[in-house]
């Protein structure tokens, strides 16, 4: 990119987060070392440099955290709702104050462009706390006549693609409903959650109400192993494969479960769409956050008559994407989150070519260090191809065609997933009819990848169950009647 005559000058973000060299586990309001004394280095995926050392929780530490949450529950659940609300409002404000710092840390630890962590992730994090703060003293109206009660101790396991946003989506509704939490951030992106722990402490959230445990899959398994033995609810966001394993480990315990899992979401472009707008929607649908988005529009269905024109526009637009330093304000596509994920994506890129799809990719130079993947379009994809069926979780879109709306619906729904769907058409009735017929928890008409604290998000079918956000999302964190 530097070779082009009109290359952008570097525009690095200058704020530096107040980062400690090492972090313990946040249990009972204090940072403590893991009992086994184990820790691991967390790196910047754009440079492969370590940025901090974090504790690696074992099952003993998880049990301690669950204990702390149990002890905190009686008082927290009986705290006057209006007082709980004020604490959550205060937390929202404090995050807002420190949001640039958190955004930079998010980009450093996770690889996402600062433009996104600053303009998408952090505003949504703040909004999520602010929105749910207001629910604390209004739950009887949200569940009219049903006397909603908190569930108890919530074990919450979150992924690495939107680390702080996922923490907010889990913690804010749980706390608003009077629950206490043990949260486990992903192994590769623990830092913003730990900075959030400091903020919670600073804001005066009572000790033990939120406990944050860093570690790998074993720490996650230690949480689900306590289902029914101290943990009253499990909430997980991540892959469908792990979600199923969690559902099995929770079976028979009587513990409630919500799962927000994978997707292979269709983005459907009719020939009558505003094509340039649709191109922008497809770009944000698949290249937002390096494609590390569970609801990414990874299957692009184009009405046959518009295929060639649309693909040409899309490729032209793709070539303008700036791939590189996540902390550069002009970067569109940052680093892939981890080496393991890059290897997964590369396997799918190979499968795409091997199975006969045609590959178009961004032709820019990539940094030498770090984990990078070029935004990629596969055309001529058949429904049976691996890249049309499996979630890649990378910046790779598979293009297919359709002739009639019926065919579009049939092909779009022909998946075990059902997280999101996009439709591009200028005909309102067609858009609404498609929205009725698509099996997906979120349908974006003439837009894509929009989120809001007031709008429930979650999947159909094997994309999971339960919603996050809005009044509907609260249902995951209250008991009504005797059901779970």
């Amino acid at each position, binding site marked *: 990119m530097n070779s082009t005559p009109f290359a952008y000058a570097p525009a690095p973000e200058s704020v530096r987060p107040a980062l400690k060299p090492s972090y313990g586990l946040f249990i009972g309001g204090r940072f403590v070392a893991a009992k086994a004394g184990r820790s691991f280095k967390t790196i910047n995926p754009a440079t492969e440099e370590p940025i901090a050392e974090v504790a690696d929780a074992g099952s003993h530490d998880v049990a301690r955290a669950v204990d702390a949450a149990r002890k905190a529950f009686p008082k927290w659940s009986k705290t006057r709702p209006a007082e709980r609300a004020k604490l959550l409002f205060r937390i929202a404000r404090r995050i807002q104050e420190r949001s640039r710092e958190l955004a930079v840390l998010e980009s450093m630890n996770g690889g996402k462009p600062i433009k996104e962590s600053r303009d998408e992730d952090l505003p949504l994090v703040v909004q999520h706390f602010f929105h749910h703060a207001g629910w604390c003293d209004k739950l009887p109206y949200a569940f009219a006549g049903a006397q909603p009660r908190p569930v108890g101790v919530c074990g919450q396991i979150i992924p690495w693609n939107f680390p702080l946003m996922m923490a907010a989506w889990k913690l804010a509704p749980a706390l608003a409903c009077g629950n206490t939490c043990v949260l486990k951030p992903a192994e590769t992106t623990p830092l913003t959650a730990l900075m959030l722990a400091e903020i919670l402490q600073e804001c005066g959230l009572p000790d033990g109400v939120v406990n944050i445990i860093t570690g790998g899959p074993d720490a996650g398994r230690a949480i689900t192993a306590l289902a029914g033995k101290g943990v009253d609810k499990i909430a997980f966001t991540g892959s469908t494969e792990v979600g*199923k394993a969690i559902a099995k480990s*929770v*079976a028979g315990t009587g513990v409630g479960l919500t799962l927000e899992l994978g997707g292979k979401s269709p983005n459907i472009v009719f020939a009558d769409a505003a094509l340039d707008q649709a191109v922008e929607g497809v770009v944000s649908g698949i290249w937002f956050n390096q494609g590390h988005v569970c609801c990414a529009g990874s299957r692009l269905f184009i009405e046959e008559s518009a295929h060639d024109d649309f693909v040409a526009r899309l490729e032209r637009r793709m070539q303008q994407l700036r791939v590189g330093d996540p902390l550069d304000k002009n970067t569109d596509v940052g680093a892939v989150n981890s080496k393991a994920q890059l290897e997964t994506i590369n396997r799918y890129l190979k499968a795409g070519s091997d199975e006969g799809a045609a590959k178009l990719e961004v032709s820019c130079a990539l940094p030498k260090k770090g984990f990078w993947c070029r935004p990629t379009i596969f055309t001529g994809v058949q429904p049976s191809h691996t890249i049309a069926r499996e979630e890649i979780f990378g910046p790779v879109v598979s293009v297919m065609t359709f002739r009639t709306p019926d065919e579009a619906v049939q092909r779009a729904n022909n998946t075990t997933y059902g997280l999101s769907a996009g439709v591009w058409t200028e005909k309102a009735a067609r858009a609404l009819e498609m929205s009725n017929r698509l099996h*997906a*928890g*979120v349908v974006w008409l003439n837009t894509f990848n929009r989120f809001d604290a007031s709008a429930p998000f979650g999947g159909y079918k094997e994309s999971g169950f339960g919603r996050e956000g809005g009044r509907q999302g609260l249902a995951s964190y209250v008991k009504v*009647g*005797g*059901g779970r």
Partner: protein
Amino acid sequence: MSRSAGSARVEVAKTLKLYMNGAFPRSESGRTIPVKDARKRVVAHASHASRKDLRDAVEAANAAQAKWAAATAYNRGQVIYRIAEMLEARRGEFISLICAIEGRSKADATREVDHAIDRCVCFAGWTDKIASVLGGKQPVAGPYFVFSMPEPTGTVAVVAPDEQPLLAMVSLALPVIAAGNSAIVIAPMTNAPLAIALGEALATSDVPAGVVNILTGIRAELAPWIASHRDIAAVCGARLAAADAKALELGAAENLKRVCLFSEAPKFDDDAFWHSPFAIAPFVEIKTVWHPSAL
């Protein structure tokens, strides 16, 4: 020709069959289980539903579900109200079956049957209100028109307990169909005649064939097949044995069926829960639709 004095009339006993896809087939397995009354006398032989019967029922239920979901909510309400009319017409039959088979008092049986009929009327009124109560317009922070609405999950297996069988089946199955799902009710064997009488009431109401199917069978035997069937979208049940509950949840994890199992509470007598939209909520999916509202 006059009837000869002194010889009592022989009652015409009913053959108990399954209720599936609007018809009353026997179990394909040919198996039956004796039904005893409160005095331990065998009064009938109920069809003992097999795995294959379950699969046939799933096929029927799935085929019926899309059309049922596409019916207007107003129409579904009228159909469910019609069920109440048919139950009312058979009120005496239900009461005497509960008394005869379960040995319960007439007053007790009457309470249960009346409660079941009234609950049916309640759900007839819910169909066109669920979306207002569980869905709505979302006030997002941006120029988008966003609304969330409940949609049916699909085919739901309803595993009913032995206690208060009519009220239990009605309480578990009606929320399911009110939302536009179809139901396969695994009915308690302990009062199979009652379950089949319910099927007859449904068959003469306007419920489309396949929307409700009733299989009399053994819960522990059918639970693993329900759990592993990929075309069942959700399972609900109440007061299940721990082993059956676990089998259902383990198998459900394979394709992430929604599972909603009630234990002791809420009691089926509890209108505060069982007449509420929260009895329906576990069997809907919330779909949120976004559209830009500014150019």
